[in-house]
C-alpha cells in the first residue's frame, strides 16, 4: 500500500480518497501546446520511445514543460547538432520527472513516473545525461536512491555542457545587444549555470551583459509551483523591481535561462505599467551568434496578443498538419494566453 493511501479512517470506516487532480488534463495541455508551438515539419524532441532505441552518447532530458516554449527546445536541438553532439532529446509527458504528482501529494505515483523515465534514458545506453529542467533535477535529488542509475547520478546541466563544447571560434556572428540575465542564485547549481552562461556570452561578439542581482527569493527557477508558493502578487512586485533594475542598468533585453522563467517573465510583464522588456532565451542568442536560423518565440508573440481567435488562426497550419482537434487547440491556447 502506498503512502498516498495511508490516511486516517473516517467515521464509519470509509477511507478518504485523495483529492482528484486532472493529471490527464495537465499533460493534455502540455502536449497540445507543444504541438501548436513547434515546427510542424520536425519535432525537435523524442516523445514516443522507438521500438528499438539506438545508442547515443548523450541523453538530453528536457522534462515535460519546456516544450510549451517549443522554440527553446528547438534552439537547443540546433545548437547541440551544430556542436556535433551525438544525442537524443527526450521531452514531453512521457518523460516527466513526476514532480507534478509530487506537488499534489501523490509521492508514489511521482516516484513511479520518474522510475519509468529513467528506464527510458537507459534504453539509449548513454554515456552521459544532460539535464535541462531545474524541477526535474530537484525531483531527482529527492528520489529514492534505488531509482537512480549511474547515468543519472553523473548528470550535468545543459548550460554547463554547452560552456565546455561551444568553442569561441564557433561564434562567428556579432550580436550587438546589451542584456541583463535573469538568474536565480544562492545554490551551487544555480551559480554554476549562471557562471557557465557568462562564459558562453563572453564568446559572443558584440554582446554586453549588465550586472543585475540574481533572484534569491525564489529557489532554482520560476516554476508555476515556486511562483505559487511565493505568491502571485509578491512575484509581480519582485519582477517589476527586477525589470526596473535591468532597465536602469542599461539592458535592452532580458535573457532567460530556463523555460519556466521565460514563460513567467513574458506573462507577468503583460501587467507591468512601465511596459514590457523583450525576453530572449540564451539559446536564441547562441544560435544567432553561431549563424543558425533563429526559431521564432511564438510564446512571447501570443502572450503579448492574448487574442485567442488570432492565436488559433496563427497556429492553423499546425492544427491541420498534425491533425489536432480544433476545440482542444482552442482550449489549450485560451488557458495559456487569454488575458485575465
Amino acid at each position, binding site marked *: *500500500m*502506498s503512502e*498516498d*493511501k495511508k490516511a486516517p479512517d473516517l467515521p464509519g470506516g470509509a477511507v478518504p*480518497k*485523495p483529492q*482528484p*487532480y*486532472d*493529471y*490527464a*488534463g*495537465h*499533460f*493534455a495541455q502540455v*502536449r497540445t501546446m507543444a504541438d501548436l508551438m513547434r515546427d510542424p515539419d520536425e519535432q525537435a524532441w523524442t*516523445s*514516443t520511445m522507438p521500438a528499438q532505441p539506438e545508442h547515443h552518447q548523450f541523453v538530453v532530458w528536457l522534462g515535460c514543460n519546456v516544450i510549451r516554449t517549443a522554440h527553446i527546445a528547438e534552439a537547443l536541438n540546433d545548437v547541440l547538432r551544430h556542436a556535433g553532439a551525438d544525442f537524443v532529446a527526450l521531452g*514531453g*509527458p*512521457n518523460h*516527466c520527472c*513526476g514532480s507534478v*504528482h509530487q506537488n499534489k501529494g*501523490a509521492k*508514489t*505515483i511521482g516516484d*513511479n*513516473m520518474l522510475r*519509468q*523515465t529513467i528506464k527510458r534514458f537507459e534504453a539509449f545506453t548513454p554515456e552521459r545525461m544532460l539535464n535541462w529542467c531545474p524541477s526535474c533535477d530537484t525531483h531527482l535529488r529527492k528520489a529514492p536512491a534505488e531509482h537512480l542509475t549511474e547515468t543519472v547520478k553523473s548528470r550535468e546541466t545543459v548550460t554547463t555542457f554547452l560552456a565546455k563544447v561551444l568553442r569561441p571560434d564557433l561564434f562567428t556572428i556579432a550580436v550587438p545587444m546589451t542584456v541583463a540575465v535573469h538568474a536565480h542564485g544562492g545554490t551551487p547549481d544555480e551559480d554554476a549555470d549562471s557562471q557557465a552562461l557568462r562564459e558562453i556570452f563572453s564568446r559572443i561578439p558584440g554582446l554586453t551583459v549588465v550586472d543585475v542581482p540574481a533572484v534569491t527569493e525564489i529557489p532554482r527557477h520560476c516554476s508555476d509551483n515556486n511562483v505559487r508558493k511565493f505568491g502571485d502578487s509578491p512575484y509581480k512586485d519582485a519582477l517589476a523591481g527586477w525589470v526596473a533594475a535591468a532597465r536602469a542598468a542599461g539592458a535592452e533585453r532580458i535573457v532567460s535561462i530556463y523555460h519556466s522563467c521565460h514563460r513567467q517573465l513574458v506573462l507577468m510583464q503583460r501587467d507591468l505599467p512601465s511596459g514590457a522588456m523583450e525576453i530572449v532565451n540564451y539559446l536564441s542568442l547562441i544560435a544567432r551568434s553561431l549563424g543558425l536560423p533563429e526559431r521564432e518565440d511564438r510564446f512571447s508573440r501570443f502572450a503579448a496578443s492574448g487574442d485567442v481567435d488570432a492565436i488559433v488562426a496563427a497556429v492553423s497550419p499546425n492544427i491541420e498538419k498534425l491533425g489536432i482537434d480544433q476545440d482542444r487547440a482552442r482550449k489549450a491556447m485560451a488557458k495559456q494566453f487569454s488575458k485575465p
Partner: protein
Amino acid sequence: MTLITFIDSAGQQHGVEAEDGATLMEVALRNAVPGIIGECGGSCACGSCHLYVAEDWIAKLPPAEAMELDMLDLTFDTTPASRLGCQIFVTTELAGLVVTTPAPRD
C-alpha cells in the same frame, strides 16, 4: 492477434485485432477508439486510458499492481471494474475481452 472489443460511451462496439504484447491503451490508440487518450504515454501517470472491464472478465485479468491502484485512486469516475489500459498487456488468453471506455471529460 487477439480479438478485443471496446465499447465506447455512446454504446458503439469496436472489435479490433490486437497484437500480443501491446497494451490495451496502445491498441485503442492505434484503432482510434474514442475515450482512450494516453496523455502520459503509458507511464501509469495520468488515468486517461481508464476503462471498465466487463464483469465476467474482471477476475480473468492479471490483478492490478500497486502503482496501477495508486493511479486509479486519483482517476475520475472509477468503479470496481476500472483498470488502466496502459497496464493490461494483450495475450491470447484475453481473446474475446470486452471493455468499455469512459465518456470524454470536458
